[in-house]
């Protein structure tokens, strides 16, 4: 069994520059690499195709294309895509839509660094 030596690559898409920074601060010290960032769903779809990250962390409410629509488009083309949706809104309707879009995880803001790291580990290293 070969051990992975390269860090897992994560694409972060959110219209808030603060969230880009917060996710980076949480995950880079934990050994993950932020391979790209985006500000809306359209950029998420384009960047996913280019970068093929191990994980996409994406906001739901974004300009031009929202996260749920972007997640649907990405999972159609890349069924193996691992996507975590983040949102400040977590009511039942939104959670339902998120589930239907094919994402693997839904997290609500705010998150502590530790919470985010644990959730990412669960998605990327389910057996660890």
């Amino acid at each position: 069994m070969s051990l992975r030596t390269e860090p897992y690559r994560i694409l972060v898409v959110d219209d808030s520059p603060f969230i880009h920074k917060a996710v980076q601060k949480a995950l880079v010290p934990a050994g993950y690499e932020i391979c790209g960032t985006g500000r809306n769903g359209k950029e998420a779809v384009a960047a996913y195709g280019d970068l093929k990250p191990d994980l996409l962390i994406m906001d739901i409410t974004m300009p031009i294309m929202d996260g749920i629509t972007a997640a649907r488009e990405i999972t159609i083309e890349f069924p193996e895509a691992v996507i975590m949706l983040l949102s400040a809104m977590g009511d039942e309707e939104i959670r339902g839509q998120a589930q239907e879009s094919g994402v693997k995880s839904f997290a609500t803001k705010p998150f502590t660094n530790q919470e985010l790291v644990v959730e990412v580990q669960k998605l990327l290293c389910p057996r660890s």
Partner: protein
Amino acid sequence: MKNYLESFAKATSGMLSQIGAEGSETGEYSIPEDIFCKHEVIVIIGLTQALRGSIVFSMAPGTVMNIASTMMGGMTIVELDDMARSAMCEFVNMCVGVCLTSFQDLEVDITPPTMVMGEKMILMLGLDKVLLTHIATPWGDLELRLGMEQ
């Protein structure tokens, strides 16, 4: 997005004509160069559902008083009192309402108008896509700023 701002500007010009301010001219459409607001009065209406964002009207206090005065049948207004503020908010509400009526097949919800007054104001609509235009009225400049998620 320019289409939407054009519609708001057209509705505003139409409303200005209706209340007696003929000869308003809408300027060019551009991305704001900075976040500083050159006027002291802002009226903001939030948009949700099919169009999500904010439409912001800004103007000098004198322009508010003139518009309010005309809306109240020529009553003399010497300060930005409750009546003047109320009239201005109603004016903006009507402009936005008329505009939204023209967006057929688009379900848009709006918030009530909020008026903010201040000095040395900075305004950030919290959105990447922001467009602005000016309407030159006989009573002063009206700046319209539209920030939208598409």
